[in-house]
């Protein structure tokens, strides 16, 4: 199946919310424990919202919905995110 892309597609939108570059972040799947770069995960959407799924088990790692003036985030599928800050 090739109906997904990757986190590079929404890098700009993520920069609006996080002041760091999420494409270089690493995360651990809260479901299966796979720890990998977020760039490795499968991105569905990005409309009506984007859904980032673990490459190992397909569980949702992160979800985001952008509306005019508001953005909602669900990070509950990641048990940690490690970002590069400098």
């Amino acid at each position, binding site marked *: *199946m090739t*109906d997904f892309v990757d986190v590079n597609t929404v890098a700009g939108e993520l920069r609006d919310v996080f002041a760091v570059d999420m494409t270089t972040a690493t995360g651990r799947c809260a479901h299966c424990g796979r720890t990998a770069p977020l760039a490795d995960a499968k991105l*569905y*959407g990005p409309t*009506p*919202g984007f859904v980032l*799924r673990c490459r190992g088990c397909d569980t949702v790692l992160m979800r985001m*919905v952008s509306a005019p003036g508001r953005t909602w*985030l669900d990070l509950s599928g990641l048990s940690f995110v490690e970002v590069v800050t400098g």
Partner: protein
Amino acid sequence: MAIVSRGFTGRPHAERADLPPGQYLTKDFPVLSAGPTPVVRTDDWQFTITNETGQRHTWNWAGFRRLATERFTVDLHCVTRWSKLRADFEGVSLDTLFAGVDTAAEYAMVHSYGGYTTNLPLADLLDGQAWLAFRFGGKDLAAEHGGPARLLVPHLYLWKSAKWVNGITLSYQDEPGFWESLGYHDYGDPWREQRYWGD
């Protein structure tokens, strides 16, 4: 100061009487998804209505296909702004499925293969407002469009018309589904442009 890009008009988005506010007309049938397309064989397919006491009514594919079906033409309005008019489906009315279901509950949660959920009042599923559709344009509903069977509730935004449906649970409480829990409007009436929380 807003910068205007000379000659850019974007997709046609002028107001039209037959379109809800903010929508544009498409002749395509775009495919949007929150995950991989489930592959469900009709041999394995099941649809279950569970009422508020846990009582279950289940259909397998053969049983489902023995029910009375209707061919109907409806307009589809997606919250991502495209609208497709006069889409032709065939399916079973939810009134037929709910005929033997005993319930005093007001709210429904629709479940799909793959884990997607969406919520709506039970009343919006009844009285000829909703179907479980298995054919589109005279052919079996393609997997990418929700086949073997999808829900169609055309008077609400299309995210409420769950693809790859496998069940409905009823309850006294309104619980938000997959998109409703992350900013999308709990009800979703396109004619009142109820896209997001607070709209």
